[in-house]
């Protein structure tokens, strides 16, 4: 399947999926994204760092297509390998993890599995932001990486999809990634509303 054709089919699938939501919700969901993109929800960087298999890996295409898919909705999507030019990878990753709004890892190669575990430790160190989102094939459900990421429910936990869906011909991964990003933004939106509500109550005293 051609890349452009695939992305168009993903977009149609997402629109169909959201259009099936009960009345009121599609408009609400679109509004949340718009508020985010116009800076009404989050003040800092709004880019998404998309990690996963590198060039030459059989799944690189799906990661690349996902970047184009998310970009078509106005997200700025960053790949590490396009940015580190000569610097130590570990330094670049430390910095990138702190900077971007969200870090998404497609856990489809030994390298990306190592990356996810590395970020998990950073998440524990930083602690304040649940910004690590890992997508993992269901075949790995009993494996080390999944168990580390899910252990004790300390993090949002990885999203599990059948391996067949980590494919350019299938829209499920794209929908799951988009909805995960949306949930994070909606959470920030509610957080901001609740903080404003508390502030208003304290000023009324």
């Amino acid at each position, binding site marked *: 399947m051609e890349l452009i054709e695939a992305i168009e089919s993903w977009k149609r699938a997402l629109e169909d999926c959201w259009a099936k*939501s009960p009345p*009121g919700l599609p408009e609400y969901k679109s509004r949340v994204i718009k508020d985010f993109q116009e800076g009404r929800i989050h003040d800092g960087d709004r880019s998404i760092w998309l990690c996963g298999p590198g060039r030459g890996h059989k799944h690189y295409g799906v990661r690349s297509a996902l970047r184009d898919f998310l970009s078509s909705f106005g997200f700025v999507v960053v790949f590490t390998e396009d940015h580190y030019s000569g610097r130590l990878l570990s330094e670049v990753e430390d910095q990138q993890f702190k900077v971007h709004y969200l870090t998404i890892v497609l856990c489809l190669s030994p390298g990306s599995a190592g990356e996810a575990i590395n970020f998990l430790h950073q998440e524990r160190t930083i602690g304040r932001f649940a910004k690590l989102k890992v997508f993992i094939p269901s075949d790995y459900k009993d494996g080390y990486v999944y168990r580390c990421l899910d252990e004790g429910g300390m993090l949002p936990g990885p999203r599990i999809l059948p391996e067949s869906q980590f494919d350019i011909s299938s829209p499920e991964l794209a929908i799951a990634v988009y909805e995960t990003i949306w949930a994070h933004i909606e959470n920030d939106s509610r957080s901001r509303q*609740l903080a404003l509500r508390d502030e208003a109550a*304290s000023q009324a*005293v």
Partner: protein
Amino acid sequence: MSEVESHREVLHRTLAAADVSPSVEKSTVILRASGENADENRNLYQSVNRTLLKRLETRPLRDCTHITGEMRALSDKFHRHVLRQATKQQAEEPTVLFSLPRSDRNAASRILRWNRESWGEESSILDHLSAFDILSQGSIQLWAADGDPGVQYSLFDNELVLMQSAHAIRQHVKYVWFLQSEALHGILSKRADELIQTSESLSSGRFTRFNLNLSDPAAMDILAMLRDAPGLAPSELPPRLRGHERVTELLDDLDSCGFIERTRNGFQLARAGFEYLRYLGAT
């Protein structure tokens, strides 16, 4: 006996229960006192919050520690605002210790149910969600104690103490004093450290997971679907929702918020669920 004397007697008993010597008690300044009266309690808490906010305008608080029975410090909107301001500035994280059975510690939904019972009707679900929002940021140290922590108090800025008289669990009205004394703060701070040593740290991850579940499009879809249907059995959920790997957890989280109610066959939307959708503007 005059009211002032009565206050002092109760304060004396309270401080004695915390092993505070008469000499430290004598040197303690009473900035404000409240009787066993809800309005007086509220006014005193507001006065404390105003003092803290005023100090935060010029510098970070040096400390902020709550030794409580039910973490009700987080039920106060004004104090949540103070905590948010404090965590923006403070190098040292605020600490909240409360009493929670071990069986309720792993899932945020269980903590929420416990808090809803403890805080009572005067706190809305938005107060609970706002408290969880602060806890999910990871900028507050939360500790769960096994039983009654005994004397309950809050410590601020190395010299300020909010002291509560002895009271039964879930009793919201009590004598409260806003006190100033570095020596008293030091004694109670040491006592707090000892209590924390025997308590369990509750990490922020469980609150984050809960919050993100609540924001999941699947959770929204379930609420809105129940809005338009008299009730739904789990088997009647659309395949997309049934296939969600955490659908049971989502339903439990929505139930713990009081947004949905269990029926004989499944779930129905509760009034709080309608109100929540309206609050979000998702109707």
